[in-house]
């Protein structure tokens, strides 16, 4: 797996956990995917560590979203194996947050009923559904009028509803596909911290596809840097700064160094194309 970078080694020396003892939540082996015009993945291997937040970053069109769409079964794979704790996808509870919240939420349902929907699919009785929803809303400290329809909420609020809809099933793993890229900068900053709080509180293994390097590093325990097509792991960088991270984190030496390293790897991969 990927080249070891000086940054990674320096950090591993300081935080002597390495990869030993980390149980993978997802193991991808020999993943192959061809589109009519290109090979996107060719015998691709990846471990996603349990209880960590992994950001996926890479050149445009390298298949970041395709990767999580294959892991979650939205796109069929041509060859290979994807296991969640050794089990197939259908035995796994996971959440998925789309980039386009306007098209991902159901506009005919109130926000609260949108959140309730996956529980309904699980055929839980109404009383239990309400308990679970209320508990989650309370634990996240969400201050949105959930009796409104999605189109009556701001973009950030809508995406927060999407995140809650993904979390309400208490997933073993949460996938987010560029969840903040349709929001303005102010809202993006706010949502980053919301996501971080959720992650700290629930400890859910999280995979975040991002097109913003700052965001990718800021939120991540691991930054997965992909190469151009066919995508391979260009680097899998650790970033172990304590949480909660804040604006101050962005100017810390550690953050700047990891981000600079990621940028360097990214630039190298872009130039190869």
């Amino acid at each position, binding site marked *: 797996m990927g080249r070891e970078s000086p940054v990674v080694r320096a950090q591993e020396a300081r935080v002597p956990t390495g990869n030993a003892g980390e149980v993978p939540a997802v193991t991808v082996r020999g993943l192959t995917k061809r589109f009519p015009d290109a090979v996107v993945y060719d015998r691709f291997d990846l471990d996603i560590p349990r209880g960590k937040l992994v950001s996926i970053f890479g050149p445009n069109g390298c298949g970041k979203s395709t990767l999580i769409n294959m892991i*979650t*079964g*939205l796109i069929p794979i041509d060859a290979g194996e994807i296991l969640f704790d050794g089990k197939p996808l259908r035995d796994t509870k996971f959440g*998925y947050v*789309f980039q*386009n919240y306007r*098209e*991902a*939420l*159901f*506009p*005919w349902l109130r926000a609260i009923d949108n959140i309730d*929907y*996956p529980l309904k*699919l*699980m055929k839980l009785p109404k009383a239990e559904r309400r308990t679970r929803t209320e508990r989650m809303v309370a634990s996240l400290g969400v201050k949105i009028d959930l009796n409104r*329809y999605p*189109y009556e909420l701001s973009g950030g609020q809508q995406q927060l509803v999407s995140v809650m*809809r993904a979390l309400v*099933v208490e997933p073993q793993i949460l996938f987010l596909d560029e969840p903040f890229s349709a929001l303005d900068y102010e809202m993006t900053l706010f949502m980053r911290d919301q996501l971080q709080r959720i992650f700290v509180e629930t400890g859910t293994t999280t995979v975040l596809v991002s097109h913003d390097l700052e965001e990718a590093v800021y939120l991540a325990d691991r930054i997965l840097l992909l190469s151009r097509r066919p995508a391979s792991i260009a680097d899998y960088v650790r970033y172990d700064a304590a949480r909660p991270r804040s604006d101050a984190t962005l100017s810390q030496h550690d953050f700047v160094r990891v981000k600079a390293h990621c940028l360097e790897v990214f630039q190298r991969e872009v130039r190869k194309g």
Partner: protein
Amino acid sequence: MKPIRLDPYLPIIGVLGLVAVWYLAVWYQIVDPVLLPSPVDTFRALWNGIAGGRLGFDFMRTLERTILATLIAAAIAIPLGIALGSSERVYRSVEFVVDFFRSTPASAMFPLFLVLFGVGDKTKVSVAAFGAALVILFNVAYGVMNARKTRLLAAKVMGASRLRVLTDVMLLESLPQTFVGLRNGVSLALVIVVVAEMFIGSTDGLGQRVFEAQQLFAMPDMYAAIFAAGGLGYGLNLMFLLVERQFVHWSGR
């Protein structure tokens, strides 16, 4: 002092303008007064006809036929449209046939339906239903096919079965387009019903009223019947719009 807001009253200007031009045309006898009665005579005929005269009865007959035709059309076309739209390949294979008959003037089908159903109400209603059904079918199928991909994926990724995706997402996604189809369908049904009432041995209905008034040279009655038909068409469209706003509150948002 607050300026008076004129905007809500703007539509009245057109109405007043039309009546004014009409008055002038009658006053200066630009048009033969036998062919164009004055607005006062016309509205008197309209009032008398609706309040206790034949016109009110004819209005209700036409309304009944139009509504019945639209209901039959909707009952057939909505389920069929959903079935066709939920499989793009099925739709593509019948698209030409649907499009062809949708483009065929329904009035050209009168002789055929006359042979099938005789000269009674059945023919009028079924030709109107035929025309409306194709319009509704086409719109429902498109509504289902153009359901937002992300929304379908969202349901799928949450574990919804194919049937649940259809009932929970596709159906609701297609509702705005279904209402477009219903509004177009009811307008077309009215057109066909009125034409049928004129020419297919009819004893009542607005079409028959217009035609008879013209034959008797009762011009105020004829104009009154035309306005009644216009009011009916406008009212039906408005009614569907209001129902739509109630049921499809998310449309266009």
